[in-house]
């Protein structure tokens, strides 16, 4: 892999001890909108980012970033 980026190598890949655990983020389709969600606990997810290209999806309050999704 060749990175062609402005960011210094040590910012992109921090030293081993600083590295965090995986954040439990995953892609899902919520109400027809592709979103990136993070697991909060066993049954709940929180939307981090809307991954759609349709601008109207970003105006949908049901899947705005920060919204909690629960599977219960």
């Amino acid at each position, binding site marked *: 892999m060749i990175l062609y980026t402005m960011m210094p*190598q040590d910012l992109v890949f921090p030293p081993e001890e600083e590295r965090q655990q995986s954040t439990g983020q995953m892609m899902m389709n919520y109400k027809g909108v592709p979103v990136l969600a993070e697991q909060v606990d066993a049954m709940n997810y929180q939307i981090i980012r809307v991954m759609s290209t349709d601008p109207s999806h970003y105006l949908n309050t049901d899947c705005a970033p920060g919204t909690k999704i629960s599977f219960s």
Partner: protein
Amino acid sequence: MLRQISHIYPESRIKKSVLTILMGIMSVGGKKRMMEMNENTPEKPEGQKEEKSSLMEKIQQLGQTNVPQLSQDSKIHCLTIVGQIEGHVQLPPHNKTTKYEHLIPQLVAIEQNPKIEGLMVILNTVGGDVEAGLAISEMISSLSKPTVSIVLGGGHSIGVPIAVSCDYSFIAESATMTIHPIRLTGLVIGVPQTFEYLDKMQERVINFVTTHSNIKEDVFKELMFAKGNLTRDIGTNVVGVDAVESGLINEVGGLGVAMKKLNELIDLKKEQNEGIIQ
């Protein structure tokens, strides 16, 4: 009430049957009244409170709030390319990334959906994987629909080919694009082949940029290998107007002019298509 009734009708048999009927009626009536009460109770303040608290929660959690609803589907789709462009290797989670495997299916969907007439690409990227960046650039440049890009903030390194891959490109006046040579990150094997490999990779970027923009190859190379512009590196940081003057980007402008241009291109394409049909 029931006691009164039992007083009036002392015979036990009649009393029992009447009572059961009466109780039935009463329970139905009771339920009905309860339902009516539910309908009548003003729920609005509660709902508003809930809305407010969820809004507060959103603001507190991510510093974001939502904007009013648009009803109809948009005929223009928007692709945002932010942070690092991620390729074959998943970057550590603290990096904000744009993933190649997310963008490519979206581009395919945009190409095949007849309702989508144009694509706006918004860039604020620091660069990233060469192969992924070039793949995205190729995909955008091969779209049959009109495309317009805007560089906001920064379109550095591999962001440059993506910015020029659109039919028309804009750069915000304060936005910058850093053009610098490709170098190897991580393990470097010090053999001449490594240099050749890098040189080939660089040639791919230069070829793409020069064929998709008005910049001349020697001008682009000059910018790429310029000394004294970047503190610890060779290369150039071109800001807004400079990018337009060198021919890399078509015009200085923001969202308004970019959207206007995209609509113009869409209309032009429609006219052309109508011409062909006739």
